[in-house]
């Protein structure tokens, strides 16, 4: 009987440890994403200002022109940025008990509100337009 109790206690301890590690690693992931996005922020902003990249309605960054899409440096940067956004949206969706799409759309809205008039945004029809041309 005593051995069984010890075994149950040991199992409980192991499970608790796993839970603590899982929660802490999830938190690390969000912090890691933030650090990586922070590092890329200046480059992303520069590309947005020059009109080479823009924002989509689903909350991801994309090359505006074919030339920009073919640029290896830009495509590598966009892949890294969008991978991190995907991870972030998934984490926030889990925390807020909503869908990844909903979070993405929320972020797209946030980007639109904060953008300058010359920034590019993709319409639902797939057309690229500057913010100033989208305003009523």
């Amino acid at each position, binding site marked *: 009987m005593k051995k069984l109790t010890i075994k149950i206690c040991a199992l409980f301890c192991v499970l608790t440890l796993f839970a603590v590690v899982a929660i802490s690693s999830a938190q690390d992931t969000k912090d890691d994403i933030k650090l990586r996005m922070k590092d890329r922020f200046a480059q992303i902003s520069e590309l947005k200002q020059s009109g080479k990249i823009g924002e989509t309605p689903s909350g991801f960054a994309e090359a505006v022109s074919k030339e920009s899409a073919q640029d290896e440096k830009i495509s590598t940067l966009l892949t890294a940025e969008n991978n991190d956004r995907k991870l972030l949206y998934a984490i926030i969706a889990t925390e807020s008990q909503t869908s990844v799409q*909903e979070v993405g759309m929320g972020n797209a809205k*946030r980007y639109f509100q*904060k953008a300058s008039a010359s*920034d590019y945004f993709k319409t639902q029809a797939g057309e690229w337009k500057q913010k100033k041309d989208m305003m009523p």
Partner: protein
Amino acid sequence: MKCIIPIIAVGIVLALTGCWTITVKHQVEPIYITMNVNVKVEKQLNDFFDFEDQGQGGSGSTKSIPHDKTPKQ
């Protein structure tokens, strides 16, 4: 005999109105929940992207415009 027809008509109208139900509560609840979720997501996104406001003005692509353009002497 003439009085029976209006009485029956009134009876039918009363019987029909007794069957009406109002379903306002079911329409309001989902809107409240959706708004709650949106506010929560918005707050989480704003908290996460706080570095955008710290580094540069606006989304990063926006630059702060100096308001005072008077030349310094």
